[in-house]
């Protein structure tokens, strides 16, 4: 485990807002805020899981950090990497060098290029072929894997090839975007093991997932994502018992919705980014909401070693 307090975060995202300009009908524009005042930080050696339902803007967070948002996106707020505030130009130079992405599926590999070659392009300095072979050997990929095309890989091989691209790059921050959907139990276990290794070797790992159980198995801290912002950052160890140690009503509800914890669903659904409620984003569904919750958006507060965005949390 990390010694968080002693080191500085490798990545610190503060008040990140991402919105898209859309043309609705004719020339009428509307601005969709898909991520609003989001703050997370990741320390070297830890895995931070960003957990949220699909459509909550998790993947956009990854793209925003890498500077790969589409042209019609407008961002504000700050992204600080290793103490340095990132400009788009710096993001371009850090991509693939200091910050690596592990994508969801084999579809993220060029279908017409042999995988060995694609992994080698991720190498920064040194003998690319040798480094690629070493990493393939480490992940127990047969030597002839490098000659295969992406469609020839089995699911498990594809997963290891994708993780290889991050490992060969020597990046200090690894962002894994939904790396486990559709995998069986053993494959999930194996994949999570790779992330743990990456973190234990000193890298910061951001694990983006919709599956809180998967996240809890490997992450050190969990950032809970709701309607484009983080409502709570908690230690993985806070997820225990009835959820008494958790800070935000949404996190508690998520925890209690798990089959082994009572299987209680939360009524309602996550608001769409064009119809966000006034005040606290969770307030329309919140069991403990009071009239003041609807008046203004709660600020982030530090509560018991985590952060929370709720005026009632203590």
């Amino acid at each position, binding site marked *: 485990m990390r010694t968080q307090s002693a080191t500085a975060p490798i990545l610190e995202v503060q008040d990140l807002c991402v919105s898209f300009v859309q043309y609705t009908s004719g020339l009428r524009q509307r601005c969709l805020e898909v991520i609003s005042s989001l703050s997370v930080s990741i320390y070297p050696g830890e895995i931070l899981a960003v957990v949220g339902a699909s459509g909550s803007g998790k993947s956009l967070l990854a*793209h925003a950090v*890498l500077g*790969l948002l589409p042209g019609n996106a407008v961002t504000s707020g700050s992204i600080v990497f290793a103490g340095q505030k990132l400009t788009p130009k710096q993001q*371009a*130079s850090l*991509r*693939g*060098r200091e910050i*690596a*992405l592990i*994508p969801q*599926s084999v*579809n*993220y*590999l*060029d*279908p*017409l*290029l042999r995988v060995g070659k694609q992994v080698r*392009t*991720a190498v*920064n300095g040194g003998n690319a072929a040798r480094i690629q072979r070493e990493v393939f050997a480490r992940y127990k990929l047969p030597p002839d894997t490098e000659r*295969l*095309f992406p*469609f*020839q*890989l*089995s699911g498990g*091989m594809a997963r290891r090839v994708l993780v290889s*691209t991050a490992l060969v*790059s020597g990046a200090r921050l690894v962002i894994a975007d939904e790396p486990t959907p559709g995998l069986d139990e053993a494959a999930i276990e194996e994949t999570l093991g790779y992330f743990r290794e990456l973190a234990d070797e000193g890298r910061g790992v951001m694990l983006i997932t919709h599956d809180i159980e998967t996240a809890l198995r490997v992450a050190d801290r969990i950032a809970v994502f709701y309607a484009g912002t983080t409502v709570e950052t908690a230690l993985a160890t806070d997820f225990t018992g009835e959820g008494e140690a958790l800070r935000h009503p949404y996190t508690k509800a998520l925890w209690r919705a798990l089959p082994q914890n009572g299987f209680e669903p939360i009524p309602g659904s996550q608001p769409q980014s064009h119809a966000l409620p006034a005040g606290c984003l969770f307030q329309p569904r919140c069991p403990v909401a009071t009239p003041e919750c609807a008046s203004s958006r709660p600020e982030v507060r530090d509560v018991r070693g985590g952060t929370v965005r709720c005026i009632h949390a203590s």
Partner: protein
Amino acid sequence: MDVRGFGFFLLRKLLRMATLLIALSVLSFWLVSCSPLDPVQAYVGADMTRVSPEQREAIAEYWGLNQPPLMRFFHWGSAVLHGDLGTSMMFRRPVAEVIGERFLASLALMSAAWLFSGVLGFTLGVIAGMKHGTWADRFIKWYCFTLASTPAFWLGLLLLMVFAVWLGWFPVGLGVPAGKLAGEVTIANRIYHLILPALTLSILGVANVALHTRQKLVDVLASDYVLFARARGEAGLLLFWRHGLRNVALPAVTIQFASFGELVGGTVLAEQVFSYPGLGQAAVAAGLRGDVPLLLGIVLFTALFVFVGNLAADIIYRLVDPRMRKGETA
């Protein structure tokens, strides 16, 4: 590569080609027999008044025109199966010989147009795709849409007026200089006469491949694998070279091979406008003068030509694309 699978593929294609040719000959023969043109009159031409009914009868007898159409079709069909396409009424030479000679002239024209339009179209498509949404993209798109809606003969006439009549840079027509003996015609003469018709066909052929390449490149650049390549730090020309070109070139080549049909169609019109003595011009003449054996021969031959183009496109895909080449198993 899976040899057995490829064998089956070829067999299927050959079967399809055979049925295509049979259906096409039946259809063409039927259309020609419905034609109001009297082949004897078309053959004799303006001298018709001086031809007695007996002579008419003799000519019809000679060409076998007095037999019922079905009989004629079977006669013609069995001769074709034996490799004899018959004799052209216009040229009084074997159809195969006429087609061979005319096709060589057309081939020069078509291959020049094919290559030039392919290279130029691909380049324009790549530029438009890379500069997606900019003025360069809009200009190229506008240019292609304009061309796509331009008739070949009209463009041919336009080029003829500007470059041959007004500027006098190029000859007005024909495949070789008029009045020169066949032995004296040089390669340079032939190329000189080829330029305008080839240009007409190339300018028109550009639109198809350029628009396809543009769209394909836009899709590729928006794909997950390009996003991931960018996340790995690739950018600019390297990114295009590694992922763009590879994924865009194959469809472009395929489209270019599959466009043989349009190429042949365009050639018929361009040759007519430029009086270029190629296969297309022979086809028009054969149609107008009721030269049934030549017309049918040309129909079958061009069908075969277009089919071979499409087949080439299919085969190239199977040979080049690893997903087709290696099957779906790891």
